[in-house]
């Protein structure tokens, strides 16, 4: 308290001062930055100093809205007059050097008239960013195609445009001690659960860190359990997905300089939902959603099951398969675990190489790896051809998850599972599954259980999670997340069709 008083009195002492003094103070604060421009003008009897960082401001606006009105006048300027006459809306009167610096680095132009009690800053920032493009990380066939960009303004625009309602709250939170980043907490006032909003707000406000790189690393600081391998917040670059979740009563977070929106609370199952399910007819949507759950199981368990069966439990292999499996295995000199690990590693290498290389080369690598190495490995007797099918299916299945994060989580889980099945057989696989289930029971997302609605069991939510039902049945929002308003629309009204006679 005492210190802030002191600083205030000090700041008051800063103005009025001569242009030369101000110049010196500003240059010192800027560490003689070459991009920092100070221009001195003499209009009538008043000396005016205009200063800004050249790379941060819009020069056209500087010339047309600041410099030309400023210099075209013949008599003296006062600060009040500048404020009234300049055709810009966002003037701020600053008296503190630190505040001036903050404004300058976010793209403001400062104007000082000598011997005045303060100076004016005008924000005319110019940010270079890419245009709104199609999403390539979460591509959908149906529905909106646009994706978030790195600019918070654009992202906010996209969200606001989709949810054009004054119910949409957007709270501004600044995070970062050294490099400040603007974060927006977004939710629907009449819908979002207060506790969720409060928890998220508190976590963001309490965050003390130097700087945040992006939205994704931010989630690692504010999520419930950092030790878990499972992502606890949904990250999307689709504004449609972002707004869809917000309209279901969830909380969204947008971060400046990041093309990723964060959605919380999230359950494990929502990582396998795609907005596309909603655009499909309910029965087709259900089929595809269930298919993804099956893919999850296949992806995590098919290779371990193969290893376990071939190493320990020959009894469970159907007799016709036994002969073909046996003869393909007989040519391989390694135990099944090593064989499976080798192939899984190969697939992961292909995926990683494909992701790092430019698109055109990446495709070539895919073909070379997939066909040539696969064929050669079988011919050389390094792997059995049935395992290649198994591994390919499980790799394929792991890419069906709409979220890239959960897909990579499952791919990583597979490796310990294969090892367990190689040492202990199906008992090991079962132990692994038990471990995962126990872990998942304890994980929370924004304080809400991760396995909702399977645990705690809530049958009412199944139509929003595991499958979809026609709209006249499924008219509620997720009970599990306790939104303020449960009902999306009245059930009876949708059933009643207006006939042409009426």
């Amino acid at each position, binding site marked *: 308290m005492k210190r802030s008083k002191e600083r205030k009195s000090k700041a008051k002492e800063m103005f009025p001062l001569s242009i030369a003094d101000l110049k010196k103070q500003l240059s010192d604060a800027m560490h003689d930055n070459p991009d920092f421009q100070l221009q001195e003008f003499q209009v009538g009897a008043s000396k005016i100093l205009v200063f800004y960082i050249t790379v941060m401001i819009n020069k056209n606006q500087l010339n047309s809205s600041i410099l030309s009105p400023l210099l075209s006048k013949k008599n003296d300027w006062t600060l009040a007059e500048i404020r009234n006459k300049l055709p810009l809306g966002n003037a701020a009167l600053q008296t503190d050097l630190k505040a001036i610096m903050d404004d300058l680095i976010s793209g403001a132009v400062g104007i000082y008239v000598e011997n005045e009690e303060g100076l004016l800053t005008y924000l005319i920032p110019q940010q270079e960013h890419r245009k709104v493009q199609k999403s390539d990380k979460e591509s959908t066939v149906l529905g909106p195609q646009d994706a978030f960009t790195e600019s918070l303004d654009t992202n906010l625009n996209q969200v606001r445009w989709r949810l054009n309602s004054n119910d949409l709250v957007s709270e501004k939170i600044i995070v970062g001690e050294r490099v400040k980043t603007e974060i927006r907490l977004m939710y629907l006032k009449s819908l979002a659960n207060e506790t969720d909003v409060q928890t998220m707000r508190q976590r963001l406000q309490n965050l003390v860190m130097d700087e945040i790189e992006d939205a994704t690393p931010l989630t690692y600081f504010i999520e419930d359990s950092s030790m878990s391998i499972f992502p606890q917040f949904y990250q999307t670059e689709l504004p449609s997905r972002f707004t869809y979740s917000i309209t279901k009563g969830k909380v969204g977070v947008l971060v400046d300089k990041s093309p990723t929106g964060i959605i919380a609370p999230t359950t494990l199952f929502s990582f396998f939902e795609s907005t596309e399910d909603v655009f499909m007819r309910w029965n087709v949507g259900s089929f595809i959603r269930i298919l993804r759950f099956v893919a999850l199981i296949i992806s995590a368990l098919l290779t371990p099951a193969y290893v376990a069966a*071939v*190493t*320990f*439990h*020959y*009894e469970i*292999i159907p*007799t*016709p398969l*036994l*002969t073909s*499996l*046996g*003869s*393909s*295995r*007989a*040519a*391989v000199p390694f*135990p*099944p675990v090593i064989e499976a690990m080798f192939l899984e590693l190969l697939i992961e290498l292909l995926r990683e190489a494909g992701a790092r290389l430019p698109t055109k080369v990446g495709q070539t690598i895919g073909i070379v790896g997939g066909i040539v190495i696969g064929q050669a490995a079988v011919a050389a007797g390094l792997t059995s051809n049935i395992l290649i099918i198994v591994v390919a299916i499980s790799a394929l299945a792991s890419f069906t998850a709409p979220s890239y994060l959960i897909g990579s989580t499952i791919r990583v889980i597979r490796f310990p599972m294969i090892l367990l099945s190689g*040492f*202990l*057989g199906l*008992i*090991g696989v079962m132990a692994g599954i038990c471990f995962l289930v126990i872990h998942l029971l304890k994980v929370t997302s924004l304080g809400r259980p991760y396995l909702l609605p399977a645990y705690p069991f809530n049958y009412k939510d199944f139509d929003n999670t595991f499958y979809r039902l026609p709209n006249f049945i499924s008219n509620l929002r997720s009970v599990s997340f306790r939104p303020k308003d449960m009902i999306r629309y009245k059930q009876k009204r949708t059933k009643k069709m207006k006939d042409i006679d009426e």
Partner: protein
Amino acid sequence: MPKLHYASLCFIFILLAGCAPAYPIEKLGVINTIGVDINQENEEMLDSTYVFFQFDPNANSPNELVSSTAKTIKGARERANLKSNFRLVPGKLRVQLFGPSIAEQGIFSILDTLSRDAKITDTMYLAAADSSAGDILSQVFQNSTTNVGTHLYQLIDTNVEQEILIRTTLRDFMHKYFDVGSDPVLPLLSVKDQMPSITKMALFQDDRQVGEISTEEGFFIKLLSGKYQTGRIEVDLPIEKFESVRETETDNRKEESLFLALSELRSRNKIKLVSKEEVKFKSEVKIEARLVELSEQLTLDDEKTLHKLEDEIAKNLKQQINNLMAKFKELNVDPIGFGEIYNTKHPITKKEWRAKFPEMKLDIDLKVKILRHGIIE
């Protein structure tokens, strides 16, 4: 930190427990069929013949045959292992074949080890053979053009699926064996034209083979003890009774009997104990079937003909059942399980039932209904 200690402790426990015994399939000889006989020279010894899969990428066929002699089944497998470069494992055993020598002495001691072994499925089939089981297996091994290992299994399985044979898995056998007043039946394999075929059904008294019936007669065991979903049967009736309804203009063949085939046969059956003192049972059987074949042309469009046909079939079937029952009583075997029904009302021991069974009486009320007879132009 304590958590980390627990984790490392758990890890050490896992290491101490060691790994599960591995059965990598490329090193296994997976036994599919076993044939058991009693050694001809030494009555104490058992001859076992094994048909198994072995996985060698360079071999033409994955099947292999090995036989050995020992005092126990498990011992025989150890001996057989000495002759094979693969580890013989019984986990996929599908058929166990018994030669007449051992079937007549009793097979329970062998079945006991099978049912105790958790690796062996209870749904494997058992079968008896009319010559040495080892011979039959080697016949199959030499002459089968299809997959030798699964030949016998498929032979039995397809016929069971079509309800031509009674299901005779290990579980069924043990169930009937342990039940009071019920005896097991097994299919009887014999070699015809160097290939095995199911010719008869072997009747067992407890675990000893005491007689045999034809597979056609086997139909009635299931008719009285279970129900058919899609069964089939052939019946031959005396032709005289149908002279009046014959379409003589179109058919002039002269034969003694009328042959007909029923298929898609559904049956329901209920057996009640009517009198305890007389050991009298009453059985109500209802059969619904499709008439698919007739050796003579009859005026089937007339309902009377159809009813007559139904009555005659019922009469014929009843006669056959009575003949079969006489055979059962003579051998004193009860594959239908009348004793079981008796036992539920009036507890009885196996021995007592054996004494009572030859005196039992059966009253049959059999109804046949022909659902469709097809469109005949």
